[in-house]
């Protein structure tokens, strides 16, 4: 689709009800590609960028979803191991002062009567968990795409969190950065990059990066 530029997808708070990036003209990456802020890039670039975002965050968080929390098949179990490894690597490599977290999204129903935001996140009101824990960068993995998109949009609308999607299908335009065709290998590769960049990203660098993003024009894309 020939669109002039792309709609910049960056941390919010963006709007009362932000538009879906796909409706603003953003396309999903092809195999071997990823996207950073809506811009299609070679996947390799996105691994570096994601690792940098994680290391620059104050409360970098991984949100595993039902597809990897529950041991419903062998692939899920292996992914769980890889995700735990990524989290452990993050804990080991994050600069002093950072507080990495691992918070599950156990299911998709609205929590009643009240969610405990320290313990879980939910796609119907993910902002509560983000706000409460002051999460400034997070990665979703193992969440069904529909629910992931809900979460990503609501987070972008009402919080300043940088979102990363590690997607097993075609990726997410509504995340600030998205991979596609996620696999055990890709999760491990991201962990490798986190390790590689240890010590090179000063504590709190994410804030500066996001501030720089905010100054850029939100280009392109006509709402169709």
């Amino acid at each position, binding site marked *: 689709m020939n669109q002039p530029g792309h709609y910049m997808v960056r941390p919010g708070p963006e709007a009362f009800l932000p538009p879906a990036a796909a409706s603003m003209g953003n396309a999903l990456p092809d195999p071997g590609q990823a996207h950073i802020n809506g811009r299609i890039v070679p996947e390799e670039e996105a691994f570096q960028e994601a690792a940098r975002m994680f290391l620059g965050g104050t409360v970098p968080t991984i949100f595993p979803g039902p597809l990897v929390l529950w*041991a419903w098949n062998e692939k899920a179990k292996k992914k769980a191991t890889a995700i735990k490894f990524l989290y452990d690597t993050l804990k080991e490599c994050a600069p002093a002062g950072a507080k990495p977290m691992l918070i599950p999204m156990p299911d998709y129903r609205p929590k009643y009567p009240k969610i405990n935001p320290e313990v879980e996140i939910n796609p119907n009101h993910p902002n509560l968990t983000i706000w409460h824990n002051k999460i400034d960068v997070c990665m979703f993995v193992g969440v069904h795409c529909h629910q992931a998109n809900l979460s990503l949009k609501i987070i972008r609308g009402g919080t300043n969190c940088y979102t990363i999607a590690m997607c097993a299908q075609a990726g997410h335009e509504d995340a600030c950065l998205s991979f596609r065709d996620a696999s055990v290998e890709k999760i491990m590769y991201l962990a490798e990059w986190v390790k590689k960049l240890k010590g090179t990203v000063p504590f709190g660098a994410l804030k500066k990066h996001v501030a720089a993003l905010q100054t850029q024009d939100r280009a392109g894309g006509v709402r169709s």
Partner: protein
Amino acid sequence: MSKEKIQICEEFFDIMPPEYQALVTNATWGKEGRGWKDVGVNKELIEQHSLCAGCPESMAFRYILASLPNPEDTVMVGSTGCTSLVFPHVGIHNIHSLFGNQNAVASGLKRALTLRFPGKVKDVVVLAGDGATVDIGLDYTLQSWFRQEKFTTICFDNELYANTGGQESGLMQKGFVAKMAPMGKQFDKVRLPEIARESGCVYVVNCTVSKPSLIEKVVKNAVLIAREIGPTYLQLYTPCILEIGKNSMEGLQEMRDAEKPGERFAYKEYISDQAKAFLADVAEKEKAKKASAKEALAQA
């Protein structure tokens, strides 16, 4: 899904909220002899509910979910109404249909599950209110029975449309005054259990939910018969205490009054000969199993 699959990946067990840990460790999935006695001990199949305090529907929900023979392979189909407020907290897959088309959705669902999992137990249970079953959904309810679709229909009969404020429904009694029936209902309570029998249901029960052990028995029977023989129907009186002007503590007595001999919810059962023989066979097998277990224990 076999009970073995409902497990948390070990790396994540510690970070899962307590109710999910309980779902796995204390669950009665695949527990032989699970039933109403597990209510209160294991809450894995229903979380808190947002219905009124003392609501008989909420009681019925707990008994039904406790009584399903194989909850790990049961999918429910609900309809719009008070029950749909509870379904988000039910620990098995359930589908919110529109309103009235629950039996049609269940028909398609049962066929999909049968063709995808031939020879495997996959129970479908419909749970809807009286308005959804007998008024807006009557066509789809009856047609699923005509077609002999193999699933259980449960109707929570509170004799009106409760969730929308208490309007007259087909299962309301004649003369009862309610919204949209300011002069009292002009025609009799629809005899749906008899219609169910004539439409092809092989097991029909009409009763209240005052006795959890009875609910356990009829739910188990209904699901097991629907697996093998034909459609089954349970009409359960779950009065809306709000709309009949009672308070939280009075629901149980209201049901006990309504089920006295001669009253409209006195226990009534229609069962085909084939279903009857099937249940007898099941009972025989249970007895034999218990006997051999007892013997094994005695020998140990």
